[in-house]
């Protein structure tokens, strides 16, 4: 690919690396002087490019602070022709994230990604441009972005990200998301302390998103497709099960997918059926109370049935001498990690199946930020000559 240069000596990985972030000569001389804008400010960007939501963390190379920290719905709104002035703030033609969603009536909404990879090139390009303008309003800085990619992303998916990022970022590195999640989740200050198992060296991440649940071993190297099992059953599938069940019990209930999702996000749980869970809904303009304990439990428990075999199959793939430690480091993340009881139910299943002292933890409220946090940590660690230069 002529426009992407890897500024590193590819033939000899043990060759001495470039040593300075301020204008050293690349070892193989592949990059022209124009690619290195040493007179410009460098901004490091950790970018979790998600199907539903993206997270952006940016900061200066020498600093631990973030100048920008944002979660943005991954959506671009193209304002429809004929929308009169004043309807959209600032009469913008392109809207992003929440602003796009708020103006759904006046704009064509395009999600740049589907199932973790770019499906709409133009929207992705516009979205990247927007991210650049957030982290560098002056447009003068050199942006070095570490972008998370699914562990099973192929080379076409990688190329697509690089192509779309051209013109928005000057340098880029693509790193598998589960690794970045582990790096972001890691408590750096505790690494090396007795009893602390570094999730980067031995963990299993269960990421329950909208379209897929991705389970991945993180074992001290960048995970490959062999380390991951993706199951096309996650939050959206739970919504569908709830909807089907409700349609059977309450035909013509008129509940939208959005409302069902809200109900799920407020009440979903796994484990023994809990009753009653009374939910107030408006049907045909009138308030009704529906008892949804069983419906919600049944739908969410299906998720457990779907992901548990993948969990045990990945545990079986882990090296036998590290498996007991691995069992201490199973982390559930993604929106689905918010389902009540998911950690205890998975853990109990492992105990019941005889696994040695398993411990399943939740990534916690900050789950949306771990991939981006890992990405910016990786950006800080990347050597100058490892960045792939995008010549836009």
């Amino acid at each position, binding site marked *: 690919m002529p426009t992407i240069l*890897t500024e*590193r000596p*590819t033939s000899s*990985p*043990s*060759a*001495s*690396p470039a*040593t*300075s*972030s*301020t204008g050293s000569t690349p070892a193989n001389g592949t990059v022209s002087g124009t690619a290195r804008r040493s007179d410009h400010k460098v901004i490091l960007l950790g970018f979790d490019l998600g199907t539903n939501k993206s997270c952006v963390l940016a900061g200066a*190379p*020498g600093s631990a602070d973030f100048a920008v920290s944002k979660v943005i719905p991954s959506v671009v709104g193209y304002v429809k022709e004929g929308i009169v002035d004043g309807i959209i703030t600032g009469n913008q033609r392109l809207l992003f994230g929440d602003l796009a969603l708020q103006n759904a009536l006046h704009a064509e909404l395009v999600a740049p990604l589907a199932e973790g990879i770019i499906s709409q090139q133009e929207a992705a390009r516009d979205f990247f441009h927007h991210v650049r303008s957030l982290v560098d309003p002056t447009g003068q800085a050199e942006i070095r972005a570490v972008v998370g990619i699914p562990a099973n992303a192929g*080379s076409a998916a990688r190329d697509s990200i690089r192509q779309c990022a051209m013109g928005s970022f000057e340098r880029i*590195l693509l*790193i598998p998301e589960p690794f970045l999640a582990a*790096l972001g989740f890691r408590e750096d200050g505790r*690494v*090396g302390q*007795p009893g602390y198992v*570094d999730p*980067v*060296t*031995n963990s299993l991440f269960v990421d329950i998103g909208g379209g897929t649940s991705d389970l991945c071993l993180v*074992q*001290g*190297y*960048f995970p*490959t*497709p*062999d*380390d991951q099992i993706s199951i096309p059953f996650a939050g959206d599938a739970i919504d569908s099960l709830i909807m089907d069940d409700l349609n059977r019990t309450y035909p013509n209930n008129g509940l939208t997918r959005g409302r069902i999702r809200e109900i799920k996000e407020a009440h979903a749980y796994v484990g023994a059926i809990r009753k009653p869970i009374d939910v107030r809904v408006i049907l045909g303009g009138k308030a009704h109370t529906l008892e949804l304990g069983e419906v919600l439990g049944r739908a969410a428990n299906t998720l457990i049935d779907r992901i548990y075999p993948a969990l045990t199959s990945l545990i079986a793939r*882990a*090296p*036998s*001498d*590290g*498996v*007991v*430690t*691995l069992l201490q480091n199973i982390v559930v993340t993604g929106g689905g990690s918010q389902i009540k009881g998911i950690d205890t139910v998975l853990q109990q299943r492992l105990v019941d199946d005889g696994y*040695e002292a398993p411990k399943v933890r939740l990534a916690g409220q900050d789950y949306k930020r771990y991939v981006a946090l890992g990405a910016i*940590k*990786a950006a*800080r*660690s*990347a*050597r*100058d000559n*490892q960045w*792939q230069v995008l010549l836009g």
Partner: protein
Amino acid sequence: MQLVRRVCLLRALGRHDEARTLETDEFPSTLAAVRSSLDSSALPDSEVQALFEAEYLRVSEASLLAELLAEWFQGGSRSSSSNLPASPPRAVHHNPRGDGSHAAAPAIADLLDQMLEAESRPHPKPHRT
């Protein structure tokens, strides 16, 4: 007792499966042999337990010291600041199926080297299915 030390060492290394195998398969017969060579009141279970605890403590102190020394050596050779020369990639081989579980935290820059090298290879190795 050599066997007690081996069990404790395996546990400290996180190799619990092997430790358990030693404990359940070899240890009872060795203990029985030791007991029968002494008089019948020798080595009650409480003493065996104490032996394990003392040995475990020694092993964990030794492994902690080893970790600290390893960190200290690494700290001397690898700079934490990205503005200073980074150490060349360690002479470790990328070994996805190998024993990554007890390794010290990998240096991100080394992993990036491995990834970029793999990407630059014309035909990536086929993945196991």
